[in-house]
């Protein structure tokens, strides 16, 4: 029973994530990609007169089912089967986060940064509002995210996806090393 609540090692989680690629292809020529749902929701809710958002979004509604499933999967994994122990981070990460003024890790996200009241602080504004904006803007501009380029594109040996994934990491490394400490110090 206890095993159900334990986190999955990378060699279990990784292959299962990878299997979504052939499953979707075989179920109906569907290409794994999550960030395109952001475009679809924009097209469904507030397309305005923008050409990029005026298209038949309903034709691709399969991936809205995919992401609703992901919310349910998150609920099962993060609520029903939540691991009571903190994430098993490396010593150096724990030390480093402490040096930036964070508490000991608890749950999957630092509650002291990601909470409703924190939205109205400088830290929360940058981490959630600005960060979220860049995720939505950047993934659409790159025409894919970690799933579409990083998993599907790399699996299909597409070199533009390799460039995209490298860019995701360069951007992430830069911000994690140099910008996050600044934001956390305000």
């Amino acid at each position: 029973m206890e095993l159900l609540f334990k986190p999955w090692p990378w060699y279990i989680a990784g292959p299962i994530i990878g299997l979504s690629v052939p499953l979707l292809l075989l179920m109906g020529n569907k290409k794994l990609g999550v960030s395109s749902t952001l475009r679809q929701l924009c097209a469904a809710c507030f397309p305005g007169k923008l050409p990029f958002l005026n298209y038949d979004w309903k034709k691709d509604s399969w991936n809205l089912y995919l992401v609703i499933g992901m919310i349910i999967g998150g609920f099962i994994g993060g609520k029903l089967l939540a691991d009571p122990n903190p994430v098993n981070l490396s010593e150096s990460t724990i030390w480093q986060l402490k040096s930036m003024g964070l508490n000991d890790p608890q749950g999957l996200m630092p509650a002291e940064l990601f909470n409703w009241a924190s939205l109205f602080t400088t830290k929360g504004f940058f981490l959630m509002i600005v960060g979220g904006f860049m995720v939505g803007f950047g993934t659409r501009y790159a025409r894919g995210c970690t799933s579409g380029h990083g998993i599907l594109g790399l699996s299909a040996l597409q070199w533009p996806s390799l460039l995209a994934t490298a860019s995701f990491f360069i951007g992430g490394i830069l911000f994690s090393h140099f910008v996050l400490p600044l934001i956390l110090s305000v």
Partner: protein
Amino acid sequence: MFTVIEMKNIKYLLVGIVFGLALTKGEAISWYRIQEMFHFQSFHMYGIFMTAVPVGALSILLIRKLKLKTLQGEPVEKIKKVYHHGVIIGGMIFGFGWALTGACPGPLYAQIGAGYSVTIVTFVSALLGTWTYARLIPYLPD
């Protein structure tokens, strides 16, 4: 929006559940894990990529070699990603956001499901980012 739940799409819901569960139990939706990854302090996240991609690649190869058909009996289409400058510029901007939020779009959904309700705000902000991109397309290098 979902006036009619299409039964033919329920299978994608099931894939989503498993995908979301693997991301969550694999801790790929954890802000902590993302910082650890960007600091190269653990193999965990790289292990996930380094197993997910070969599994995906081998399956695609197998589909090709065995000429497998979709459930509808159609040939499986080739996957083609085309280069444009947004791959690099947009990719970097997404990377910036990934480091701050600790989430790419998939984990955003899973975090909401996992009960981190404030992620809804991050998500709405991501929608706003996508909308802004749509608005600015004429002015951005392609």
